[in-house]
């Protein structure tokens, strides 16, 4: 069951890679949030209330609802055109992501077992690298934010492999991280949207040597 969810999770990554319209991107992110919730729910063998609350906050509220909505609002407000025009064509990026997935799985299998065998770990790695890759390959600021969120999701999954026995602190950290980064990133993206009309990174290349 969990594995199924994880597979779905990876599928969402493919969706992000190929997403032409930002809406799809956002949808994929929201759906990732949902998947994360599910994964958490199934993974956690013992649930104490605090942990549950934290989980709900993290995954359902923030990742599945608030952030997607906020992004959506941003797009609407700044009239960002709907294409996520990448540097690298969607086909290529899809290919690259597939490559990432494959190699990670392969290395995970060939490298020593233990955690590498652990599918969570593999998925998280895939997600993180995909997030980084999307960041590098996309033009728009908003897409940067989105790919950052994807990367964060990867981190969350990773923390699943590690963080279960760890104290609350790690979760707290994740929460703070998401909250802070997303909020502030969003606000700044908004500002940028106000100041530079067409919110592309292309405009943000004045500071250089």
């Amino acid at each position, binding site marked *: 069951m969990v594995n199924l969810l994880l597979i779905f999770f990876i599928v969402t990554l493919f969706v992000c890679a190929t997403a032409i319209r930002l809406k799809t991107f956002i949808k994929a992110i929201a759906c990732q949030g949902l998947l994360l919730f599910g994964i958490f729910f199934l993974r956690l063998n013992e649930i104490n209330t605090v942990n549950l609350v934290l989980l709900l906050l993290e995954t359902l509220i923030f990742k599945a609802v608030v952030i997607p909505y906020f992004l959506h609002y941003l797009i609407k407000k700044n009239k960002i055109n709907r294409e996520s025009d990448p*540097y690298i064509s969607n086909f290529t990026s899809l290919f690259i992501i597939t490559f990432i997935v494959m190699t990670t799985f*392969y*290395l995970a299998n*060939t*490298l020593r077992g233990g955690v590498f065998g652990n599918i969570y770990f593999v998925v998280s790695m895939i997600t993180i690298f995909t997030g*980084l890759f999307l*960041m*590098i*390959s*996309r033009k728009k600021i908003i897409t*940067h934010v989105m790919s950052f969120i994807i990367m964060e999701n990867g981190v969350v999954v990773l923390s699943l492999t590690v963080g279960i026995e760890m104290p609350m602190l790690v979760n707290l950290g994740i929460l703070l991280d998401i909250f802070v980064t997303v909020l502030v990133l969003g606000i700044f993206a908004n500002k940028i949207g106000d100041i530079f009309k067409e919110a592309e*990174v292309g405009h*943000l*290349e*004045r*500071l*250089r*040597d």
Partner: protein
Amino acid sequence: MKNRNGLILIFLTLALGAATSFVAFNALMGRNFEFVLSGNTILGQIPIRIDALSAWMILIINFTFTTGVLYGTGYLRNYNTSANLKLHQFLFFVLHLSMILVCSIQNFIAFLIVWEIMTVSSFLLIIFEYWKKETIKAGLNFFIQSHIGVLFIIVSFIWVMSQTGLADFNAVRLFATHQPGAVAITLFVLLFIGFGFKAGFVPFHTWLPYAHPAAPSHISGMMSGVIIKLGIYGILRMLLLINSNYIVIGEIILFVSVFSGLYGVILAIVQHNLKRLLAYHSIENIGIIGIGIGIGTIGLGLKNDFLAVAGFAGGLLHILNHSLFKSLLFYGAGSIYQQTHTLEIEQLGGLIKRMPRTAVLFLIAAIAICGLPPLNGFISEYLIFSGLYSSLKSNSFAFSLFMLSVFVALAVIGGLAMLCFTKAFGIVFLGTERKQYHVEPKEVSRMMLFPQYMAAVMIISIGLFPQLFLQLLKNPVALFVPDILNSSNGIFSYQSGILTQIGFIGIILTVLVFVVYEIKTLTGRNKINSVSPTWGCGYKTNDPRLQYTASSFVKTYSNLIEPILSMHKDVAVVNEIFPGNKQYSTHYYDKLEFYLIDKNLKWLKKLLLKLNFLQNGRTQFYILYGLIFILLIIFISYGEYIWNTIKGFFKLF
């Protein structure tokens, strides 16, 4: 206001000079001065030792600074930028202090510190006329090059420290004795390069010709007079400490010095700027000093005391002499600059009638620097010659040949120097004026003349009574050749006997000249002496432009040495029937500088500027760098492993 500062500075300099000179003189008489500052954890103990060598240097420094401060106060009268002037005077004092400390401190780190303070202060003194672009450029050039030199020194000191764990200079001796010869030589070469940058040995000389013209004249005098000598001091000090493999080391020194001497004078002759010319002459004289030290060292190696004494005595004496006449020459150049606002030899002329005293002083210095009797330059060169000559009697042909070539080289240097200074003095001071001045040049103030007289008196007295000064050199030389102190060893008295005769001849010569001149005037009184224009070989209207110019004076010569120096000619070809105004200009560029520095610098810069794609303002790239770094490290650490797995991957099919 301005004057008050000047007076304070003079007072301070004199006070410091007097105090240190007292100590130094005692040391020179053989009562060494030593006490140890209990430093701290960082520096370690700081021993302050003033032995005869330091004393000799300190006395020279004090004298030069005394003349320098007097001349400088007169020279800077016309500059009224108060803040700048105050800073200048302050730094002047700092420089004096730091130089004396350089001569006395014997702790590695502390030495480096005072050494660098000296560099910095002299650098700031050089850029006194900061509003000129080239001044700043020259200053930075000086600063950077001395920085590189210091890096060499630092490395060698670190080497010694990490081997012995001591911060005292004596650690070098310890190191040198406990290491194989090759190591000691390497260490010495490192130190030689490091100090050579300051001393201006070729090929570490390229900063001099820029820095000297840029600096105000009294500072140029200081630099050429004493600052570059501290490089020599460092080398001598290290020689004292690394007491092994003297022959090889000596040959190294000798080779470099001969090269510097010839190269310096060869390039000096073709310079058009008076101060630049003098700067190249400093290089030449450093070469001569080096020759002295080199043969001295070889003498130590050969256990040939006569050779050693002649070499070191000549070298050390030449340090003093050069500091005297070179500072005098620079002061003269400064006076010219102050009056005419140019240093281009081609534009000057006939100044002897406008500023006769300066002219005479300059002439004296010029004769001295050519090493002609009866002045001091000859004395030191004579000592070196005698050493060289006696070193000819070695028992290996190669060695004798080498020594003979050095011998000849020294002679040639003398000849070239003569060519150069006949040009410098003749064109600048003699003949008729080559251009109209806005302000009529006149003799400079007494304030500026007095120190020059001081230097001139010293020059003449060394020339006429050399034996006295040789006696002063007994203890410094004894540091290198200890057994000249015991009375049985007669080398020193022997040499001083010869010097007495030389001085005597000098006196005879002067008297003779005087007598002949008097006879002429006496007999000439009852004759008709008329004055008429110069014989132009039938060409009546004589025009200053008809005069022989500096470039034409050295034309034959520069044709001969064309291959050695790279001359840029801007020739205007006459191809019309009625040619208009034409320009023809030549300027010489230092070939070594071009090949050693400019070229390498260029490609190094190119290399570095290849990295400029990095900060391109694209956020994506910035993140990419991180990713690349991570992957790079992973690959470095697991490269082989990953490679195998990939191979395994392909084996599957």
